[in-house]
């Protein structure tokens, strides 16, 4: 995806191929401040969010070889790394395996698997733009806050049931928009 003249997919590939520090620096400058913002929106303190962004980007450096641009966009891949890290926060013991979402290897018999991972970014934004403001709000909050339901209900001063049904409606709408025509 080209965004502001940068092709982040290619930057990750450059890190993987030649440990390209300059490419890493450009990835860092785009994603680290956004990773920090993501954590802060979820209620993390500034220093903790900064450290989280550092750690997540170090993982990007380490795992760049695993990035497959046919499977996911740079932003999706980096989001998944951050998501795995976040879920991992409670894991104190390195001998306990992490709960990771890893890109599934390409399966020749499931060509649609490709599209599930790498979906047109414009299409995702279109689908999100089709949500009502209330649905978009709960969806955003659900991506930021721990304990989404109760925390969102508290923040919006809404009954828990209302929040749940809004999330459900938002998800159903996304499903319809993103799953039609096999996601193409």
């Amino acid at each position, binding site marked *: 995806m080209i965004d502001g003249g940068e092709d982040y997919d290619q930057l990750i590939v450059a890190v993987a191929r030649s440990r390209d*520090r300059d490419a*890493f*620096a450009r990835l*860092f400058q785009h994603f*680290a*401040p*956004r990773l920090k*913002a*993501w954590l802060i*929106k979820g209620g993390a303190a500034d220093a903790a969010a*900064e450290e989280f*962004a*550092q750690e997540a980007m*170090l993982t990007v450096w*380490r795992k760049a070889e695993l990035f497959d641009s046919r499977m*996911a*966009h*740079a*932003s*999706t*891949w980096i*989001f*998944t790394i*951050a*998501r*795995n*890290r*976040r*879920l991992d926060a*409670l894991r*104190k013991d*390195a*001998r*306990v*395996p992490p*709960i990771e979402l890893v890109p*599934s290897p390409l399966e020749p018999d499931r060509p*649609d*698997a490709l599209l*599930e*991972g790498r979906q047109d*970014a414009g299409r*995702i*934004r279109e689908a*999100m733009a089709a949500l009502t403001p209330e649905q978009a709000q709960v*969806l955003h909050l*659900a*991506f*930021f806050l721990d*304990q*989404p339901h109760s925390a969102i209900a508290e923040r919006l001063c809404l009954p828990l049931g209302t929040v749940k049904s809004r*999330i*459900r409606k938002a*998800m*159903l709408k*996304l*499903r319809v928009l*993103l*799953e039609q025509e096999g*996601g193409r």
Partner: protein
Amino acid sequence: MTERPSPSEERLLAYAAGTLSPPEAVVVSACLAMRPEIDGWVRRLQGVGGAILDDLDPTPLQQDALARALARVDADTGEVVVEPPLNDMPELPEPLRRYALGKWRHLPGGVSVRDVHAPRDGDTRVILLKIAPGQATPKHTHGGVELTCVISGAYTTENQAYFAGDFEEADQETLHQPRVISDEPCLCVAALDGQIVLDGWFGRLIQPFVRL
């Protein structure tokens, strides 16, 4: 096509966002390993997460952030990956294979329970349950939420039958007594939040001895 019992949309969203409690996430991950169509949806949601991340207003970093990051990657010698050994149950879906397992505990009524040493979250923990054909768990309610994914065999509650890969969410309001309807034992993975509360005089009688 009838709807198979599956994780709710809110739970899948929390799983995709990484905000689900780890014990619950373990049970969801087992379910996804058996249900490619749900797994595909969660991967699409990762794309939504990526778009949201991309669109966030950046929060300024400390001035030396990039210098520190570069110093870190320069000094980096790679991650120490400790690959835990596989456990002794090859019949488990892949995400559960590397968790250490406790000893089987055999409860009255053909019910066996075994701890899965996944990360705990407060009172919530992960267990494997194996129930013999024709048997039922004691009738019970829950202190909190109980998530169950069937790995093999099948059980039924008052309202619904659950087969391999199916997912049940029960909460405080659910009073249920799952009964096994398969010829083989029914093996499930469950995340329990809070204590199971057994119902009836017999339940109350054995409760002190049955720590599920």
